[in-house]
């Protein structure tokens, strides 16, 4: 995977709370206008898709950690993002954890998700890397995408930005459910057992979603130049 790093974004004073009201930059606005031009569906759904698209583009604007790769709001919401985050993997045939530096996540959102609570694994699939080794990530052979569980229940109408933040928290293991006897269960029993015995790397990162400290360190380590977006 490449190590392109975005131009250092500017976080508005209100942080994530200001997403709805902050103006979009030209690049994000143009992308938003393009994808929402061909929206269809009932009025309530189109209004929601527009609001979600705006939030995601605002998030893309204020953080160097997330990059939108694919965004389709014609019918249902389909979003693919590249997330700069440590991800624990156990490559096939190996016994040692390998920490990758980024993940490609696929997020699917349907109209019925607005009106009923959903299982935690419903929305997010890890498209890359393969062989993610995590108690709350299901084992699916590539390239189906490994489901990422974000909790025993996600509330009706959860926002895309919350799914993204929860995904980051889960992958960095800042929030993790390792108890296979918990009523909610785990998605990968062997991984749960492994991490119970090897808790010392947890969490994989303490950086918050909007932090740039870990990104600066990565930039330094790889000696990359910062690119414009």
């Amino acid at each position, binding site marked *: 995977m490449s190590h392109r790093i975005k131009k250092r974004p500017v976080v508005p004073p209100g942080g994530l709370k200001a997403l709805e009201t902050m103006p979009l930059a030209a690049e994000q606005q143009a992308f938003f206008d393009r994808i929402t031009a061909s929206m*269809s*569906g*009932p*009025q*309530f*759904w189109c209004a*929601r898709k527009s609001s979600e698209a705006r939030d995601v583009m605002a998030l893309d604007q204020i953080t160097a950690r997330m990059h939108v790769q*694919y965004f389709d709001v*014609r*019918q*249902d919401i*389909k*979003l*693919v993002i590249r997330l700069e985050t440590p991800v624990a993997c156990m490559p096939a045939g190996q016994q040692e954890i390998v920490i990758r530096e980024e993940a490609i996540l*696929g*997020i*699917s959102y*349907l*109209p019925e998700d*607005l*009106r*009923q*609570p*959903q*299982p*935690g*694994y*419903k929305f997010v*699939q890890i*498209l890359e890397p393969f062989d993610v080794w995590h108690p709350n990530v*299901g084992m*699916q*052979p*590539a*390239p*189906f*995408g490994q*489901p990422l*569980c974000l909790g*025993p*229940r996600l*509330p*009706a*109408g959860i926002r895309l930005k919350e799914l993204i933040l929860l995904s980051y928290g889960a992958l960095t293991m800042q929030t993790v459910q390792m108890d296979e006897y918990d*009523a*909610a*269960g*785990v*998605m*990968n029993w062997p991984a749960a057992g492994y991490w119970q015995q090897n808790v010392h790397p947890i969490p994989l990162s303490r950086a918050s979603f909007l932090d740039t400290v870990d990104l600066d360190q990565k930039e330094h380590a790889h000696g990359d130049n910062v690119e414009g977006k």
Partner: protein
Amino acid sequence: MSDGRFHEIVLPEGTSDEVDRVRRQDRLPEFVGLERDAEAILDATQIAIIGTGSVGANIALHSARLQVGAIYVADFAAFKPASLLTQPIGPSALGQKKASYIGRRCKHLSPKTKVFAWDRQFADLDSLELEQVDVVFVAGDNLPVVIDVSQRCRELGKPLLKASVEGSSLVAQVDFYSNALEASPCPVCSFTQGDWDSLNGSVTFSCHGGVNGNESDPNPKLHTRPTMSIAPLCSTAANLALFQFLRDRLGLGQPVRDTAVEFCAFTHRSVVSPLKRNPRCPCDHQPWELKSVSRRLPDCTFADLGRFALGDGVETNCLSFECPAWSYAERAWCSAGHAQQMGTFFRSSQRLGQCSLCGGPLACPKVYTQQIVAAETLGDNLRRPLQALGITDANRILVRQAQRTVLLREANRGVEEGGRS
């Protein structure tokens, strides 16, 4: 019962000879202002009751005493000892499935009424099973079911009566939703933040469905607190619901659709208020139009179905299509990363074939599949039979255009035995 259909309650021969001779007209009053043929209307009326607990069971039993044409009852629970406190049952009912038990009692009360029962989760009931009914009652504290029932009634344009109680204030309330127009209200329109919090706290899921890759088996666990009420209050709510139903069906007094009636036993006052559409309601308020297709759906093309649904002059490029239980994959990948154009429908458990380069199995991650497919995405596939696109078995298709949704189903669907045709 695993096919998502109600099962009919049938009594053994000879069990109801005396009851058979009971005639409703021996007791039915001549209601003030009645201008319709009450006997004919009630004989033809088919009702569904979702939730046969304290309120729903009373609704069902009284409906049987009205000797309506057909009663459909649905409830996944069984009677517990605490059920004796509020429900119209005796100790012999304990442990029995509520829907079937109440269904049998309805059948005993009115042998001429067709009675059908569903003892499993409402979500597993085929969505068209309510098509035959004239009105739906929902009675229960299970908010996920209330929302599901509400959405299905909206889609089918079925009037919905929601009966509820608030025990501590001795209040019984019945909301009547016409579901006639896009502007009509639904139960979710009046949800408060407290209702949403209660909904979100009422269910958890295990990882079972995710681990097995079978999202249709999320294994939800409900955590609802039982309704704290007393038997007379539950009966009052049931009676209020039936009064509203009778007034509507027989045209008695002022119209009752899209109104809420609330009775308080502290004050002995009733308040009637209009129900309003909430523009921020997350439910789809557009009723479907239902049409039957004489051919097998897999033999049809999407272009044919679009024209059949919306007329020959329709611009098919503006349409979108949904085939329940089928997803559309434009592309698929093998584990080596080779991408391949697909343009095919598949079920969640199905493989998409093999990579032409390496022979590895192909798959399409969920984010690149579509449940609702726009005509422009289908492109030339608009004019290929559904069978050629992978849809080997489908008995319904949804066709959408702007603010219209048409449900197409095969014409032989719904032609059943007895009163369900």
